[in-house]
């Protein structure tokens, strides 16, 4: 029997018939009440409905610490992205869901700490590459560095890839934070 969809697609019980099946990456800023369980609600929604989370960061952002901003990077087809937004909106403590990818130009940044254990030439090379990437040295021993790098996620990716070639590495990444360009200020 002809059946275009597959069983177990994320976001719906069974099959999809929609035209656009291109998977795209979207960055959301989700403004929530800073209360216990709110992060669990968001994460539970993603896992329960089979949506992807590529990156997630959360922190309070209001002066009185009553409001938090969750930055989520996710992937999905157009219909799934639309579902994610609508499903997030249903959660009671959620103020607003901003699809930064859809809203227009935005800045994405990530911070990473990369420990590289290397000697001799490799050690010198790691320092030279760090310089090219404008990474800072956060800590050093005789056979290791901890580099601190910030920038868009692709830049961080490339830097980590290069470091891995030079020695044993340990990586800590903050996840993506993002904000819209321009002079509009999101009141929380």
């Amino acid at each position, binding site marked *: 029997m002809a059946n275009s969809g597959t069983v177990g697609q994320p976001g719906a019980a*069974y099959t999809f018939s929609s035209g656009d099946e291109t998977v795209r990456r979207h960055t959301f800023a989700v403004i929530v009440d800073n209360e216990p369980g709110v992060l669990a609600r968001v994460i539970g929604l993603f896992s329960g409905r089979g949506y992807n989370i590529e990156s997630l960061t959360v922190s309070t952002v209001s002066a009185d610490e009553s409001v938090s901003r969750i930055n989520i990077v996710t992937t999905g087809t157009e219909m799934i992205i639309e579902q994610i937004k609508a499903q997030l909106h*249903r959660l009671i403590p959620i103020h607003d869901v901003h699809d930064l990818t859809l809203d227009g130009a935005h800045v994405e940044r990530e911070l990473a700490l990369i420990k590289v254990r290397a000697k001799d030439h490799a050690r010198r090379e790691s320092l030279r590459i760090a310089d090219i990437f404008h990474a800072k040295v956060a800590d050093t021993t005789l056979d290791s560095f901890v580099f601190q790098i910030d920038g868009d996620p692709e830049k961080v990716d490339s830097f980590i890839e290069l470091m891995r070639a030079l020695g044993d590495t340990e990586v800590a990444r903050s996840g993506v934070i993002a904000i819209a360009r321009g002079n509009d200020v999101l009141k929380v």
Partner: protein
Amino acid sequence: MSTQQLSGAEMVIKALKDQGVDVVFGYPGGAVLPIYDALFKQNHVRHILVRHEQGAVHAAEGYARSTGKPGVVLVTSGPGATNAVTGLTDALMDSIPIVCLTGQVPTHLIGNDAFQECDTTGITRPCTKHNYLVKDVNKLARTMHEAFYVATSGRPGPVVVDLPKDVQFAMGTYEMPKSAAHKTYKPILKPDHSRIEAAVDLLLSAKRPIVYAGGGVINAGPNASKLLAEFVRMTNFPCTLTLMGLGAFPANEPQYLGMLGMHGTYEANWAMHDCDVMLAIGSRFDDRITGRLDAFSPNSKKIHIDIDASSINKNVRVDLPIIGDAGYALEDLIKVMKARQKKPDAAALERWWGKIDEWRALKCLSFKDGEQIAKPQQAIRRLYEKTLATGKDTFITTEVGQHQMWAAQHFDFQKPNRWMTSGGLGTMGYGLPAAIGAQLGNPDGLVIDIAGEASIQMNIQELSTAVQYRLPVKIFILNNEYMGMVRQWQELLHGGRYSESYSEALPDFVKLGEAYGMKGLRAENAGQLDDVIDEMLAHDGPVIADILVDKSENCYPMIPSGAAHNDMLLGPVAEGEEAIGTAGKMLV
């Protein structure tokens, strides 16, 4: 605005009273003893003691669905809360407003694996609309009122309030909130006017329109159903209802095509498939409705009115989404429609009705009465005719399975809030406790649980509740000694290998009823059917009626899973033919 010093437990009761709650369904335990003590000392809120917490939630659902008011549940911590989970999930899937109060171990013991502790908010997070853990008695009153607001506004659903025992004992300030409005939760009720105009444009241009309405119309209140009827009569558009929507449009109106979907009528499904403009109101394009998605109503423009934005474009891409309450939307649609000079295309509609009448002429729900043993359809139809003759306001609940589908097909509903069935979750054991709740909400109503012999056993303990409170609910068991729907699928999909679907070692339901202190009746053949129904309806008290029906009868028409609306099976498939393809077998 009144403020007063009360214990947490007293606040719970006061909040219930202030919310106008008259009935609470519950079961006591260690972690809710202070609330039960406060309950004991007052006369405003009546407590109904169920026999299992799942029954408490289903009873509250039956109460809510038959009265339009939120249902309230009170259970203890640990097993009390976990037993309620099936009911909560059921209420979430069917959008039923429930406030469920759960006891919790004292705050200082939370996380210590204390006796009867469970992570109630963690466990119920995915199966509630929202939940709360109240750690500060001074936030208790506000939380209670907020819980009622969240449960009943927008798309309704279950809300859990978890109450640690020390918070129930603590003294604090009770304050009525100044307004019901919520800081962040603000559902959109009024639809966008320009979209209503666009919808009317589309509807007026339609040659083959259909109205496809669901439970959202019922949840929008009885007035929304009146408006739906007005809209359909005014336009003379054909109207079909989902399982959840039965009663939203009167079944005896000429425009009614019957229920649609997997076990819907031939005319409803074909009209859905062939229509050119579809108006979906308070319905969610569930997989039981659509069948194979890529063949679902392929040539229609779809208008979808729903209060929940996440229902839109979830399964089916629609052309004109309208977010809002079904009642408001219908009111606006009628207003705009009336203001237009242009009227629906009468000639095209006549041709469309001609086509529909051809489909109707197949009489897809017809059946032959059983000569010896009664047919299940026959039993339901006789029950319908006889309840109609009583002139009583009749409320039907069901369990889940073949009997549920036959009840949906053969029992006609003229009004909303008269039909209570587990649509989304498909919970066996729903019907009896739901009937108890419906009877409490409608003391003068005739409440009947149409059941199967397998489903009824899943919450059979609630017979005791019915007897305790002298609730004259009638339990009408279609007994075919099988989990009939499982058996039907095994016949269609698995070569008739009836793996574990035979109801072995059944109790004698007559004696069982009598053991609980209620009347027990049995119809062993078709000839006894009428007398048993008469006797059941005449008895002023709870009755269990065991109706033996044809064991091999299957529920038709049927859209096999993975098939399209125009691939309906009207009756048994000839030998050697595959009813369901390989892809369909993967689906449920």
